[in-house]
């Protein structure tokens, strides 16, 4: 019924000047605001030819920056998976006082600016901070090194998996788990055979978002990294650095790597969304 209505509406609007104007505006906005800058990244990256392009990418500092970003993502993703699953499971399957507050707290990194997370981190772990001096006395350094970059990236990306899982788990309710338990399944078996398979696509989707975000993170990492070349520079910091060094082609070359990662993530995300809609009726 509704399909037929929309068909007729669509037919009526075909060729309508308003429709054409809307489509043109939409396409223009996408072209101007997204495709053009995206295209520019690759255009400028390859301005000096392929040899120069790969030369920039294979420079030791740049290779290291790619490695560090992947390391940060590599730590953040499993941590986010475990954390997101535990938190979403506990908050979806049980009710207890303070539940809403806890949800807001977990989602806090989404709503506050990353730079505040960075500065807050220094407030705790910096040498002028709360724990920093004590840690320093014991020979542990938690600021301006790889550790701080990895932890801050993990904090910033921590809500993504949780956020994808929670609404789904809430919607699914606890009937299937109750059925499993009543049929004699233990807690772990229930989790791995019932709960986890039910949310696998949402989990995967959350992970792709986490991955994209951890590679793209700039503000918080800029605060805690110390920008040591070949040591604590992530991909985004390396782009910023090269850009300000006036080696702009190199900056664009590195940016094209980040863009490519993002595009691949986007493809995976689209594919997952399709799987998700196929799996859940």
């Amino acid at each position, binding site marked *: 019924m509704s399909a037929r209505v929309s068909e007729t509406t669509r037919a009526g609007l075909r060729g309508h000047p308003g429709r054409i104007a809307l489509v043109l505006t939409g396409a223009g906005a996408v072209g101007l605001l997204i495709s053009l800058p995206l295209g520019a990244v690759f255009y400028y990256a390859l301005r000096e030819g392929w040899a120069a392009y790969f030369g920039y990418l294979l420079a030791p500092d740049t290779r290291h920056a790619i490695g560090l970003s992947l390391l940060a993502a590599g*730590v953040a993703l499993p*941590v986010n998976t*475990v*954390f997101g699953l535990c938190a979403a499971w506990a908050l979806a399957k049980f009710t207890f006082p303070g539940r809403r507050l806890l949800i807001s707290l977990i989602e806090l990194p989404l709503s506050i600016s990353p730079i505040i997370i960075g500065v807050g981190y*220094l407030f705790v*772990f*910096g*040498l*002028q*901070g709360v724990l*920093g001096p004590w840690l*320093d006395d014991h020979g*542990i*350094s*938690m*600021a*301006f*090194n*790889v*550790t701080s970059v*990895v*932890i801050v990236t*993990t904090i910033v990306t921590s809500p993504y998996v949780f956020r994808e899982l929670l609404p789904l788990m809430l919607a699914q309710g606890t009937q299937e788990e109750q059925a499993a338990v009543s049929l004699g399944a233990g807690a772990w078996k229930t989790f791995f055979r019932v709960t986890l398979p039910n949310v696998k696509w949402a989990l995967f989707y959350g992970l792709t978002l986490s991955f994209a975000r951890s590679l793209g993170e700039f503000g918080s990492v800029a605060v805690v990294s*110390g*920008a*040591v*070349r*070949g*040591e604590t520079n992530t991909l985004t910091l390396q782009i910023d*650095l090269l850009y*300000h*060094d*006036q080696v702009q082609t190199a900056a664009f070359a590195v940016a094209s790597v980040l863009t490519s990662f993002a595009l691949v993530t986007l493809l995976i995300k689209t594919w997952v969304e399709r799987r998700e809609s196929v799996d859940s009726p």
Partner: protein
Amino acid sequence: MKRFPLLLSILGLAATVASAQTEILNASYDISRELFAEVNAAFIPAYKASGGGELTIKQSHGGSSRQARAILEGLKADVVTFNQVNDVQLLADNKFVAKDWAARFPHGSSPYFSVHSILVRKGNPKGIKDWADLAKAGVTIVQVNPKTGGNGRYAVLAYYAAGLQAFNNDAAQARALTKKILANVVVFESGGRTATSTFTEREIGDVLVTFEAETLALASAPGSAYQVITPSVSVLAEFPVAVVEKVAAKRGTAAVAKAYLDFLYTPQGQEIVAKNHYRPRDAGVAARYAAKLTPVKTVEVDAFFGGWEKVTKQFFDNGALVDTLLKEVAAERIN
């Protein structure tokens, strides 16, 4: 809690890497990457040849105030090579750097210096020869905001010094010249590099006033569309260096850190400095680069203006000379 095993393994890895050989970190200002890439490439073999062993030098670059802040918060830099005396002083006040740091190395611990010069578009269409020409009607200037950046402060002091020199130390005349020049500034940029981009990429202004290290680099690039005008008088800008004693003592790098900074004063180090458009302290090297780094009369902030504290009060604080002059300029424009 679950984050800790991962953390510890990362820490452990970092520790093994660090113990394999000597490593120092040089925290520097944001536009010194090429300079120190060359310095490091020369120092590492020299250090090894003198029996020092394998050495790795890491670089961190950023605005020098930001770098100082990071060191206070725990960035493990063994040496600092800054472009602001205040920022080293901040580290000294917090006991990261020796109290008498300025006396630890020659020339006030500033192994090289720069002056402010004038960059014009090729052919010098406005016929600029010295600071006084910047006061002419119709000349447009790009410089750094003296309220927010050291670069801009040196520019204003240079205008004022030029006024004093031209008019026999008449402060009223120097003030008038400074005002006329400031009236011609079309963009006050936040930092040195953004000022450069405004002049070169947005093509705003007839004149860019910034460090000579920057103007010479722009003018000597292949196919450059600019040329440098070296003024008759300018203010000497120091580039102070210091060993971060607190970090170096803990890491056992005090000796190599000192050797590294000493190297900047050697003829080889001074040669690299001059090649990168900074002015060397070594007279022999300076003489060899005189064609590029043309001799200029310099005045020092301490000796000539009575130090930064006094200068800040007189020129740059809220309501001080720069504010007054800009207010007057704005008022005259309306009338």
